[in-house]
């Protein structure tokens, strides 16, 4: 089992947002997590990534059988966890190329692998750029600086492609995207799916799930998973709205 979350409770500034969440993700699977605003979708993503301020007060987060609650975010990243940010931040002056090279080589060093040579790295960049339709010019720019929403999201997928993580958590990767950009992003994700990795796609709208077809759909409500089902669940949710879930839970 790649990811096993047991009775997770997460607090931010003393306020409990996640209240007893359970989740199991196996390699090769794609899970979708849906739910109304404020129920804790992003909190879950950031808790898995290890952001400071997201305090796990109870429960376990087991990644490949290891408890990662106490690990620093860079440690979790090096073990193969990737977070596609909902609001990717800008880092002026740091080129994407430089950024990716640094990240990649730190991860490789952790795995006792040799760093990629300049040509190997560039070849890889080329390959992945094609995947997400990123032009050469974009790669020379500073990370996310002056990027449109769509460009930022594509850049997240590009980085995911470069780093080849085992567990990717995509936090509202579709927000702010038009249908074309959505297709490009979805295409990127789909081409990266293997039997060894897994995806947790957090989204508001069913639309993305037409393109990134999930194996399991979970509905997050009131800090825990209220309902799980197959991909049809997403459609049902779309038709009936979140009030339906509320009723089901109560």
């Amino acid at each position, binding site marked *: 089992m790649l990811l096993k979350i047991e009775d997770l409770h997460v607090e931010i500034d003393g306020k409990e947002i996640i209240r007893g969440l359970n989740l199991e993700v196996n390699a090769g699977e794609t899970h979708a997590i849906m739910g109304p605003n404020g129920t804790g979708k992003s909190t879950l993503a950031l808790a898995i*990534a*290890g*952001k*400071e301020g997201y305090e796990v007060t109870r429960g376990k987060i087991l990644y490949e059988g290891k408890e990662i609650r106490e690990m*620093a*975010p*860079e440690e979790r*990243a*090096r073990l193969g966890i*990737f*977070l596609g*940010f909902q609001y*990717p*931040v*800008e*880092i*002026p*002056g*740091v*080129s994407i*190329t*430089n*950024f990716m*090279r*640094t*990240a*990649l*080589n*730190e*991860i490789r*060093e*952790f795995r006792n692998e040799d*760093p990629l*040579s*300049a040509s190997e790295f560039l070849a890889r960049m080329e390959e992945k750029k094609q995947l997400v339709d990123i032009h050469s010019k974009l790669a020379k720019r*500073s*990370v996310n600086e002056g990027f449109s929403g769509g460009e930022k999201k594509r850049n997240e997928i590009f*980085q995911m492609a470069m*780093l080849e993580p085992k567990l990717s958590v995509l936090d509202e990767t579709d927000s702010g995207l038009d249908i074309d950009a959505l297709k490009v992003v979805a295409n990127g994700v789909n081409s990266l799916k293997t039997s060894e990795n897994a995806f947790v796609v957090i989204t508001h709208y069913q639309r993305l799930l037409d393109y990134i077809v999930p194996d399991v759909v979970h509905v997050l409500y009131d800090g825990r998973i209220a309902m799980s089902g197959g991909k049809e669940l997403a459609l049902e949710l779309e038709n009936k709205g979140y009030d339906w879930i509320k009723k089901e839970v109560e």
Partner: protein
Amino acid sequence: MEEDKNKIIDEVTQSEYKYGFVTDIDMETAPKGLTEDTIRYISAKKNEPEFVLEARLEAFRHWLTLEEPDWAHVNYPPIDYQDIIYYAAPKTKPELESLDEVDPELLETFNKLGISLEEQKRLTGVAVDAVMDSVSVKTTFSETLEKYGIIFCAFSEAVQNHPELVKQYMGSVVPYSDNYFAALNSAVFSDGSFCYIPKGVRCPVELSTYFRINAANTGQFERTLIIADEGSYVSYMEGCTAPMRDENQLHAAIVEIIAHDNAEVKYSTVQNWYPGDKDGKGGIYNFVTKRGLCKGTNSKISWTQVETGSAVTWKYPSCILLGDNSVGEFYSVAVTNNHQQADTGSKMIHIGKNTKSTIISKGISAGYSQNSYRGLVRIMKNAKNARNFSQCDSLLLGDKCGAHTFPYIQTENQSSIVEHEATTSKISEDQMFYCNQRGIDTESAIGLIVNGYAKEVLNKLPMEFAVEAQKLLSISLEGSVG
């Protein structure tokens, strides 16, 4: 190039000042203290012509009438000028024809500093003048340069072999009366570099001087003079390190540059004097007067500096834009960490017509340090169509350090345009987390972000220096995470 950049960023940085070692070598020193006798001693040791000794004495007498200035935004305990040795030189020497004659300890020192005095340096095309304490040890590439008529030698050598040039230009940009430390330097200057580029010559190699303070309790007072004759070009680099010692050491240098019609001089510095330990003990006082005179029409002088060392830095590389259409530039990254203090910036004096100046200053403060930018843009009455653009940015790492800005703008001409921008920023938690989430640890992330922040300035450095500078930035911020 990218490969080196990243290799450097990835390397685990040391917390030790890497250049802190001491070279065990036979030294010859003047007795401590400063009197007219000390000056005569120095002059005699160097076998100087009468005019130089006279100039020194004149400066010294003037210095005695002056009071040490204290207006800078820095604090340091009073300097006892009588408790300093004003001359120290390696015992072996003078005329060295080949590297075999150089004391192996010296060669080793420079090797450790990454400065190769071997002729294989030829491949990278850098001519090096190595100065240890007060004495220039070796200047490489002299024959190649001779072919072009370029003079690049130790200042003391220039005094002997080219006295007319020295007499004509020395003190023409920074007279001894300019300020307290200029007067001191003019009295006791030890050595430094002299460079003359003849008319129409584009110097084919980077010229480089490497300053190293070794002897304890000495002050270092270099004097550098660069003259670019009409239509010439030279790019000059200066690197500086010093051993770790508990006592503070004074470094009061003067650099004068004169650019004639259509000439261009690029002067780059990577300064890494010992900055003192984590508690602020020891370290170099770096009080320097650097000034360029754009004498001729269409002349250009650019200063690029990366200052990461020194306990206290006090310097304003400046340009006097006398010639019409002349251009002055100043690009600086000044890092202060632990208890370092810096009060640095530039002065651009516009005198001729259609002159242009650019000031880009990036300050980075960490630890308990204080980093101040002080700049003067002065447009004189007849400086028609003068243009200036100044940008001073401060990056604060942590909440115990300080960044300060003291910009002065004085214009006396209505057709001038002066622009000034300033920003103050921190590395946000979100930026840090973003890097962490990609597997980059916090130390590396800081190095990455700081280098990105300073990129605009680092790009102005000659490649050889740019690589060293980036490494230096990361190292100087070691332990600043907080």
